[in-house]
């Protein structure tokens, strides 16, 4: 039989009452006498306890305010061992006494689950989400962007017409109607909207020397449209953002901020993946149309000569140009292709160069 001095609070006043506490293992109950006369018996299965630091607080039933305080270390050990034997120790209490090694391994496991979930689940969910989102949404998004931003620019209608005819000569495996716009601007750029609108700046056309470079550019942008890259990017970013904020913000704000930054870097890597895909499959489109795939690398070489600062790949939305040229060159060496001279394309290209 285990005995210990304890202090009893009756939940009526704050007076500490000194008691002698007895753990009766036979009857499975705690016995103590208050104010000399009343003998209290608390059945083990009806008690709950709080074990914080070197203190044990024992409560009975649903009464939250009266309790016994014990600080005798031997008694506490025996008491908990007895409860454990009787199966009254909850899994949570056991988990909390696993020790530091277990916690650190747990932390590593959870972080691993999060990183794994983030790298595998998010792209997968995003891919599925894109399949569910109707294409009409891509179209209305592209239309809005075109109306708000592109139509405000100085559009070269003659060159746009020539570029549209140029593209019609090519088999582009496109899933939706394509529409090309040439904008008068010294900016060296081109981009595709999700609705199939592809915008090319005259600054970029002026840089090109041959029609196969234009075919390379079209191939690249069409792959973005065909694969709904804009929508995928949007879904991945959104899904990743929600994931990060749900999983990390409940832990603490510092981890949420770290998570956000990792997510931004990751999102740039998605962007680079899409660019790689557009480069490779765009080159494939050129080969399919019997156009010299070197046009693609020529285009990048010209772009490279215009680059003033080289941004390291991991903080850039596009792969480094040298890497892109290298990748395409490897691909061209692997695949055999036919190169036919396309007089019609040549003529249209010269019209755009005027």
């Amino acid at each position, binding site marked *: 039989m285990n005995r210990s001095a304890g202090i009893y609070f009756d939940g009526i006043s704050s007076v500490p009452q000194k008691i002698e506490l007895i753990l009766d293992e036979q009857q499975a109950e705690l016995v103590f006498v208050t104010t000399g006369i009343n003998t209290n018996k608390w059945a083990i299965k009806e008690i709950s306890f709080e074990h914080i*630091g070197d203190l044990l607080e024992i409560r009975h039933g649903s009464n939250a305010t009266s309790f016994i305080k014990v600080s005798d270390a031997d008694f506490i050990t025996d008491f908990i061992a007895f409860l454990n034997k009787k199966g009254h120790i909850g899994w949570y209490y056991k*988990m909390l006494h696993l020790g530091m090694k277990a916690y650190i391994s747990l932390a590593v496991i959870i972080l691993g689950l999060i990183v794994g979930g983030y790298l595998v689940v998010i792209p997968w969910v995003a891919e599925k989400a894109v399949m569910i989102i109707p294409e009409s949404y891509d179209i209305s998004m592209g239309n809005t962007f075109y109306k708000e931003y592109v139509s405000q620019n100085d559009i070269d209608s003659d060159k746009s017409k020539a570029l549209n005819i140029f593209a019609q000569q090519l088999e582009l495996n496109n899933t939706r109607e394509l529409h090309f716009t040439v904008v008068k601007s010294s900016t060296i750029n081109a981009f595709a909207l999700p609705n199939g609108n592809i915008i090319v700046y005259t600054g970029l056309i002026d840089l090109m020397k041959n029609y196969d470079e234009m075919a390379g550019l079209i191939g690249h942008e069409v792959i973005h449209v065909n694969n709904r890259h804009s929508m995928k990017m949007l879904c991945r970013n959104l899904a990743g953002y929600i994931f990060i904020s749900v999983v990390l913000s409940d832990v603490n704000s510092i981890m949420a901020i770290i998570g956000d930054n990792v997510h931004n870097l990751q999102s740039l890597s998605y962007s680079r993946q899409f660019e790689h895909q557009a480069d490779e499959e765009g080159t494939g489109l050129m080969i399919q149309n019997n156009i010299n795939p070197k046009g693609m690398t020529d285009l990048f070489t010209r772009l490279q000569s215009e680059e003033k600062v080289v941004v390291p790949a991991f903080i850039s939305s596009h792969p480094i140009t040298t890497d892109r040229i290298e990748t395409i060159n490897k691909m061209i060496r692997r695949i055999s292709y036919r190169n036919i001279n396309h007089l019609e394309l040549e003529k249209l290209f010269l019209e755009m160069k005027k």
Partner: protein
Amino acid sequence: MENEISDVKNYKLSFHGNGGTFFGIVIVNWLLTVITLGFYYPWAKAKQLQYMYGSAALNGDRFAFHGTGKEMFKGYIKVLVIFGLIYGILFLSIYFDYLYLGLIFFYFAFIAVLPIAIHGSYRYRFSRTSWRGIRFGYRGDRNEFFVSFFKWIFFTLITLGIYSSWMEMKMRKYLLSNVRAGDVEFRYDGKGGEYFIMNLVGGLLTLITLGVYSFWYYKNLFAYYIDNLSLHKNGKEIKLKSTATGGDFFKLIIVNLLIIVFSLGLGYAWVVTRTINFVFSKIQMEGDIDLDTINQTEADYNDATGEDMSDFLNIDLVI
């Protein structure tokens, strides 16, 4: 009056929590929250509060938090419904082209939710807290607080924010002066004018010294919260006093920052326990209330909606 001198009692606040144990709780809770897709959160929160309260002691006797995950989970469901309704009405109004009406409703609803959340949070949190089996309690009146809150917000808006110092003090006074532990009543005596000048001077000096003064600014704010707090029972009282210095705050904040940065956030548990330990060790109590004579006065209260709403809105209790 003379015989009261011999009545002076000793009080000591202490905190016995340690970062390692709390780290275990945080990690176990994190695991359970992640694998239950967030549903475990209310239970996790209850466990954390239980540990924190249970580690804090006055004269060697621990505080206790009796709130349960189940209560807070029910509160969460209610909060979700309330916010769902607010957002639902906003979206409906956008759909039917009443954008401005919808936005006015939306902002109004958000401001209206604040005092209700604060009130509910105080009621729940204090009724679930006890020391030596004596329940704490909050006896503020919701409608009265609601009306005052709108009045304060209105004055703050028309004075372009200047009134916010007065608002903060009046709110703290109302809330804390309605808190009690059994038949011991709390009182807060901070004044808007003093608080305003402290903020003005503190803010300016912090700017001029490029942030260096901020530690002394924190020290003054902390002292203003603590020194104006007192406990009363039958004409007897206990006064609280801060002993923290600017240097103490400097050390606390810089070390916390280093822990967080170098542990990539995992050292959070140690930062929390260090901070609470700091707060407890820097509060001195003096007075003549006999802590053995406090009587139970407060009833049970188990609606956690306000507590959960405050959590949702990221409001922290100000005590």
